[in-house]
């Protein structure tokens, strides 16, 4: 693209006293604009000024040969606005992006500007006049703005953490605002960051999912800590009923999931694991350990110390120092053991179902039934946020019930196979006796029909 523009530009330069356009001199910017989402716009839409200029070849050559430190100024026309100051950029973009009649043909919303002014970035810019905060171009680019769906865009989900890190991992810049620089690197190691970067799941939450993109936080939330409930609907609902939710000093979700005391709450971690991963880990265990003990299974499906948190309880004891000699503790431990046992039963049943289904039996009905077990297992995690032993026990029972049903049906199916084994006994008795009889007949016939040699 750039080379085409350059080729055209040089052709134009050849012509004597020709009219030249912006791109004759501003080659790079022209190329970027041509490849951007704004390719239909002309330079004047943002910069004003004239669109073409009459200039002789020799004079043009002077401008083109201009070295960086010379200050030969060019008359761009009376209305020319030049390069806008950083503090003016939001309003400049807003001339179109906040104008309903301009945005309507593209089906785009027009509240970005007003939302920006409510954001942390916008407020510092407006109230303190400090233009070291992010303005439109820092996240979207200047001439090279691309659609958020374009993988090369700065706002493509996989690129958003890098875009934010450009400032939020800059020590000098963050010191100015007294903000930590570790947040993006913590995010990268968090469950969401791993989902995004390691599994390429573009549906995984990025910085903007929780912090909002133009506004500070998504509408309807008082603090960032409360946005988790957007996706973790059940967890937040259940948590709201728990005793923790009533404690002033409790930090909410990040208290347990935020990655510990010395993190900045961006190292969000799981404590339990989704069914697919449990099954995968169990299958892996079986490769090396065909007959694992329950302890081995528990360790295999929750290998990290953080993931058997409920049994080890270090996080709880961060606050509940007295818990060590609490009488309710054995009861809690008992329940946690039951959860672990139910998870184990789940992975074993899943494995058995898979194994039997690939053998000689049809297990479609059992697979269908087992879908419920998965939903129960996933529901088990949110229920634990109620801190209500009875509710958790109910869910555990429901999960166990489905697993027991599936196992019982599989037992019945396999009993049919055992019957086949039993049938082999009479078949062999018959086959041996019958072949002995035929052999006797053979001997008899041979002696009748064949004269022995010698």
């Amino acid at each position, binding site marked *: 693209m750039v080379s085409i523009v350059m080729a055209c530009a040089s052709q134009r330069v050849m012509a004597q006293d020709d009219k030249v356009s912006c791109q004759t001199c501003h080659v790079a910017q022209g190329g970027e604009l041509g490849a951007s989402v704004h390719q239909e716009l002309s330079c004047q839409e943002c910069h004003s000024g004239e669109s073409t200029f009459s200039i002789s070849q020799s004079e043009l050559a002077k401008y083109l040969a201009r070295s960086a430190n010379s200050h030969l100024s060019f008359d761009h026309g009376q209305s020319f606005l030049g390069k806008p100051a950083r503090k003016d950029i939001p309003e400049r973009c807003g001339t179109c992006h906040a104008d309903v009649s301009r945005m309507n043909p593209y089906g785009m919303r027009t509240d970005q500007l007003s939302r920006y002014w409510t954001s942390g970035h916008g407020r510092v810019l407006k109230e303190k006049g400090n233009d070291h905060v992010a303005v439109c171009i820092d996240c979207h680019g200047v001439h090279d703005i691309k659609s958020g769906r374009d993988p090369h865009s700065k706002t493509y989900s996989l690129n958003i953490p890098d875009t934010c890190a450009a400032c939020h991992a800059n020590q000098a810049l963050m010191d100015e605002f007294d903000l930590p620089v570790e947040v993006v690197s913590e995010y990268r190691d968090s469950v969401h960051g791993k989902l995004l970067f390691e599994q390429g799941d573009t*549906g995984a939450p990025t910085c903007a999912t929780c912090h909002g993109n133009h506004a500070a936080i998504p509408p309807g939330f008082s603090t960032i800590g409360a946005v988790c409930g957007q996706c973790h609907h*059940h967890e937040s609902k259940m948590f709201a009923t728990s005793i923790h939710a009533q404690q002033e000093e409790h930090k909410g979700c990040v208290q347990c999931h935020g990655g510990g005391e010395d993190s900045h709450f961006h190292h969000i971690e799981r404590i339990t694991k989704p069914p*697919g991963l449990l099954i995968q880990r169990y299958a892996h265990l079986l490769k090396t350990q065909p007959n694992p003990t329950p302890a081995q299974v528990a360790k295999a499906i929750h290998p990290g110390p953080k993931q058997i948190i409920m049994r080890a309880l270090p996080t709880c004891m961060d606050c509940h120092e007295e818990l060590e000699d609490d009488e309710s503790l054995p009861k809690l431990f008992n329940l946690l053991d039951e959860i672990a046992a139910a998870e184990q039963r789940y992975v074993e049943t899943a494995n058995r179902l898979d194994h039997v289904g690939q053998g000689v039996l049809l297990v479609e009905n059992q697979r269908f039934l087992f879908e419920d077990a998965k939903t129960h297992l996933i529901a088990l995690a949110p229920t634990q946020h109620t801190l209500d032993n009875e509710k958790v026990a109910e869910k555990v029972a429901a999960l166990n019930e489905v697993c027991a049903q599936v196992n019982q049906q599989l037992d019945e199916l396999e009993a049919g196979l055992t019957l086949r084994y039993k049938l082999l006994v009479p078949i062999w008795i018959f086959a041996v006796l019958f072949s002995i009889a*035929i052999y006797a007949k053979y001997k008899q016939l041979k002696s009748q029909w064949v004269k022995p040699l010698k």
Partner: protein
Amino acid sequence: MPNDMNKPPSRRGFLDLILALGTFITTVAVAIPGLMYLWPAAKGGGPDKVEVEGASNMAPGQGKTIQVGSQAVVVVRHRGGFKAYSAVCTHLGCLVKWEQSSKSFLCPCHAAVFDENGKVVSGPPPAPLPEFVVKEIGDKVFVSAA
């Protein structure tokens, strides 16, 4: 034909009887499974095709979850006809539910929302709900995998 050797005829007759019996048992044992095999099985073969029970009683906008093979499928009656989508959320595999009031599929696990065409409206699912083939024959409705 050769002469009978020193065998008493009764013993020969007994052996022949056993052989005849053995042959008979073998023939029956082979023929009966064969005939049973040929007899059409209760459930027809081929791709899974399931009739939606009570489809004609469903009001427009109403949905119900049915089993197709081993899969859970939600059938929804729209004004224009029936549509069926996999009930398994493409995120972690929870079963989604049809919400008649909002005309969308809701996954209870991470509050994902799919529109009436199975497309992701919000939430973490990476892909739309797979669609199932619906055939309406008279007032009967059949669902099968695509």
